């Protein structure tokens, strides 16, 4: 097991180094001089320009600059935002709980609907229900979620007035930050109505962000279930006289879950991509919206840091899924 763990970890190191190189050199392609970009329209005189070049280390050879950069990254220094002058890491840390809260609700929503729907579709193969699930899931997979969000706002917020249009909580509540998750913090604060407000703000973004993963999970559960239902041990279980429910719930479902877990792990990237769009539509103050604002302000250190941080998180989650897979299925451990 230890050997398996070490091989997996050693595999991600080159990927991480490559990612830092990508983040570093992509920013180098930006046309124009970074100091002049920082100075903006006011312009800058030649001596100050030279001093700043030296201060930021931009007069050194590129490879040396990369060495300095990677040294800083490993110490947790991802540079400062050009606009707010705050360290990128602390800005990210302040906004990340909002994204995590939204993403976890979305994946829960996708699992709670997607797994039962996929299972039922497989059990009743070729029924109307099966075709319905497959049709809805292909539509969900093809859905432009930024449009889907606008449609839901149009229906539930504008026409019916059931849910708020944007934000995380109504402005009249001032909930002290404990965990960063407003649903939990609002409960802890004991303020009346704060929890309801936080939840009602979460509903539409959760549905929008959960739509793509829901479609993928339902499809995956169905095909994994179909494969398992054709196995010999299912026939044996049935031949033993076990009830249909027992065969499906205990024998088939557990084995079908293994590929489904892998797919859930792979949804992290999909969730981050979706979060950028969902947060923009619902003015959700998370890292997705922060990155889009950084683009509009040409705040390159934020973009560079955000790319590295989100990429790093996806990489770690993939590693975790790999390791979990090795724990569930010992055969995988031996092959590496």
């Amino acid at each position, binding site marked *: 097991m230890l050997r398996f763990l070490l091989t997996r970890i050693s595999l991600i190191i080159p990927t991480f180094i490559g990612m830092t190189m990508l983040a570093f050199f992509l920013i180098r392609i930006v046309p124009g001089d970074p100091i002049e970009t920082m100075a903006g329209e006011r312009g800058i005189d030649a001596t100050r320009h030279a001093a700043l070049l030296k201060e930021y280390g931009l007069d050194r050879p590129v490879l040396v600059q990369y060495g300095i950069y990677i040294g800083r990254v490993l110490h947790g220094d991802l540079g400062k935002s050009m606009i707010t002058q705050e360290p990128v890491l602390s800005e990210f840390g302040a906004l990340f709980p909002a994204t995590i809260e939204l993403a976890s609700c979305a994946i829960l929503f996708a699992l709670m609907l997607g797994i039962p729907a996929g299972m039922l579709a497989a059990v009743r193969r070729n029924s109307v229900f099966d075709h319905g699930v497959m049709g809805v899931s292909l539509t969900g997979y*093809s859905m432009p979620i930024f449009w889907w969000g606008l449609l839901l706002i149009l229906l539930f917020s504008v026409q019916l007035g059931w849910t708020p249009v944007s934000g995380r909580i109504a402005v009249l509540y001032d909930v002290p930050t404990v965990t960063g998750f407003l649903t939990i913090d609002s409960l802890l604060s004991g303020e009346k109505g704060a929890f309801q407000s936080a939840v009602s703000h979460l509903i539409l973004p959760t549905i929008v962000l959960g739509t793509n993963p829901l479609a993928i999970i339902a499809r995956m559960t169905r095909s994994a279930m179909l494969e398992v239902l054709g196995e010999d041990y299912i026939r044996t279980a049935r031949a033993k006289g076990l009830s249909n429910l027992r065969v499906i719930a205990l024998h088939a479902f557990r084995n079908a879950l293994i590929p489904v877990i892998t797919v859930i792990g792979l949804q992290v990237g999909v969730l981050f991509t979706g979060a950028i769009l969902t947060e923009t539509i619902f003015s959700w103050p998370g890292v997705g919206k922060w990155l889009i604002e950084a683009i509009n302000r040409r705040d390159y250190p934020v973009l560079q840091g955000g790319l590295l941080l989100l990429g790093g998180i996806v990489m770690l989650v993939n590693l975790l899924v790999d390791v979990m897979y090795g724990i569930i299925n010992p055969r995988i451990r031996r092959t590496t």
Partner: protein
Amino acid sequence: MSAESLAPPGAAPAPPGPFREFWGYFSANHGAVAGLVVVVTVLLTAAFANVLAPYSPTLTNNAAFLQPPAWQQGGSWAYPLGTDAIGRDILSRLIYGARLSLLIGIAVVALSIGVGIALGLLAGFVRGVTEIAIMRLMDIILTLPSLLLAIVIVAILGPGLMNAMLAIAVVLLPHYVRITRAAVISETSKDYVTAARSNGASHFRLMFNEVLPNCAAPLIVQASLGVSAAILDAAALGFLGLGAQPPASEWGTMLSDAREFVLRAWWVVTFPGLMILITVLAFNLLGDGLRDAFDPKLKR
């Protein structure tokens, strides 16, 4: 005398040709046929946009701002799907938008597949350090959330349709490289390649004449799915203001313009998104159908 009449009576009919066989499997899948019909319709709409569209996509009418669709109170058949905030006909913009979206989908996939095949062949044939370098880079691109990487590339190159297409092509690249490399590795060990090699075929000939035609099926499937991904991503970038710039009638850009009117004019928001959904869905259905038809064993 024809070849058929020479066959002895009672012999089994000749096996269907490869295309007939393929079409037999493909046409049995209703979803795939529906997808094909929609794709062809969108293609024709794009080709004859100037004939079909009642107005120019950029023509504004000061007398008809945010006019609702014809069947609603206040609408008129002069503008069947209504007008946008500066009085442009939405139907005409949607029709011309089909041109842009298809152009994006096809150009992006063509670029991605071209570079992808080249890199995949290189990695599969040369192996060693070249392969490791190429595949590591592809792993990194796959690890990063796709839209985020595309956004960063566009942010660096500057917003616009060309840069958005380039960024999406980069994001889609790993799929083609991986498919080509995997197919090359599994094919090169087969006898026909060894035979060609012992006949003195050059590396170039082995790559393009022997091995590549045998990796075509998965590449075609991936290309169909790639077109839908490209259209969806380009629309997302357009929606974020990073793709095609106004007044271009790209569907995502139209949605981005329409966002502020969501509260009072449902039609400016609804129709462009519906077009994206229908087109993307059609390409996905087509891709799924192609996959099943190329690999009938998988389906059974």
